[in-house]
């Protein structure tokens, strides 16, 4: 493997990332599955780096789930997204950052459609006005939250308390980076690093001390796919694709999987439970535990010393304790299932074939 060759490709896929002043839009599923990730993102950029990231409680879903599962037409998503832009205009921001990869793909697709078909944008202005008497202008820059983590990677590493290094061996942790399809496969030019050798997470991992695992099915889709998991009859397809990835990464013994997509994160995590409970097999080098799957924000926060349970890492299926121990993170084992103020959240039932604590 020639690292210089990858650098040559990365140099062709760079994008301008403004340093500050963003309007932030959340992910529908992530704020439910892993709410700590978004909370940590805002806390890091605002309170650790002193940046201006504005969030408006009036913002909504982008409609991506409905759009990608063929239940609403594109015009509906366009109008919803136009409303988000309107909120951004109203708050006085010109840069838009989204937390979700599908959202990023959909925003990019819509902005490109409007670029190529101004008459469609004109129609959406009209629809938005009819729907809620609002007007909008497009953002100057559209970013994904992983772009921001990449952009701030050296600020993160400056404040690193627990870098991605195995404290027992002194070796870099072996990290699988998984990029959501809608981040760079739709528009490689709108990503950091392109679609074949994406740089966005690899750059973050390297800056935080880890080493990136380049395994054969690295580019493969996690299998999530809205139409696959929404319909039970199709779920085997989703599961099989995740299985294929785990089989391919297994010989590399990864310590951690980092993703930039809420859907990938969820399914690479949860399908490990289903694989364990249907085949008895777990992956990773801690027998019976599986490989922890964290988002870029969660990894950044963990490295910067956030408490894992404040971060909500107990919301992940695969137990993170083996990873925390490798990183040397100080944490209270007994606090895993305590909520704010010590409230007892209840201990989940332990599955038969994958350990959770």
């Amino acid at each position, binding site marked *: 493997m020639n690292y210089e060759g990858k650098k040559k490709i990365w140099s062709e896929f760079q994008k301008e990332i403004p340093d500050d002043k963003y309007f932030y839009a959340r992910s529908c599923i992530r704020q439910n599955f892993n709410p700590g990730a978004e909370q940590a993102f805002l806390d890091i950029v605002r309170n650790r780096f002193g940046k201006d990231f504005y969030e408006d409680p009036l913002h909504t879903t982008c409609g991506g789930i409905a759009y990608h599962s063929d239940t609403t037409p594109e015009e509906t998503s366009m109008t919803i997204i136009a409303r988000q832009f309107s909120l951004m205009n109203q708050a006085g921001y010109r840069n838009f950052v989204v937390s979700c990869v599908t959202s990023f793909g959909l925003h990019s697709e819509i902005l490109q459609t409007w670029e190529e078909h101004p008459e469609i944008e004109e129609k959406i202005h009209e629809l938005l006005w009819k729907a809620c008497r609002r007007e909008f202008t497009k953002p100057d820059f559209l970013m994904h939250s992983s772009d921001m983590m990449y952009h701030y990677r050296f600020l993160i590493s400056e404040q690193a308390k627990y870098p991605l290094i195995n404290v027992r061996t002194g070796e870099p942790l072996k990290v699988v980076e998984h990029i959501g399809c809608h981040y760079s496969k739709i528009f490689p030019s709108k990503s950091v690093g392109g679609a074949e050798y994406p740089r966005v997470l690899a750059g973050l991992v390297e800056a935080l001390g880890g080493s990136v695992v380049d395994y054969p099915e690295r580019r493969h889709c996690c299998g999530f796919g809205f139409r696959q998991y929404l319909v039970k009859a199709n779920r085997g*397809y989703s599961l099989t694709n995740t299985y294929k990835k785990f089989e391919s990464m297994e010989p590399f013994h990864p310590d951690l999987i980092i993703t930039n997509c809420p859907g990938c994160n969820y399914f690479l995590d949860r399908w490990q439970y289903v694989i364990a409970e*249907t085949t008895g097999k777990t992956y990773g080098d801690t027998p019976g535990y599986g490989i922890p799957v964290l988002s870029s924000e969660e990894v950044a926060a963990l490295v910067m010393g956030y408490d894992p349970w404040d971060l909500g890492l107990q919301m992940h299926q695969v137990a993170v304790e083996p990873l925390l121990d490798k990183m040397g993170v100080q944490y209270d084992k007994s606090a895993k299932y305590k909520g704010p103020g010590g409230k007892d959240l209840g201990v989940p039932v332990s599955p038969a074939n994958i350990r959770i604590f």
Partner: protein
Amino acid sequence: MIDFGYGISPSSAINLERFDRARFDRLCAEEPDVLKCMACGSCAASCPTAGHGNMNLRKVILLLGRGCDSDALAMTRSCMLCGKCLLVCPRGINTRHLILSINKIYK
């Protein structure tokens, strides 16, 4: 184990890693002309079972060369050894003899 109502589906991909070439090499030694096939499909088109049975000699040769033996052998069972394919093969492969050799080596 739990039955979730869905599961991991087996791959239908041809995996050449898992192809043990020994038997195919034996076939090639006995029937060197099998290597000459250029996949034109004349044999399959003129086969009297075409459209009725499974037989497709073009595919049989291909599948044996990819290690998909059982798929290939399921096809040869429909062959009636009429020899029409021998007449049309532009590369002069003795197809009738080839099918007999396949059945002998892969029995």
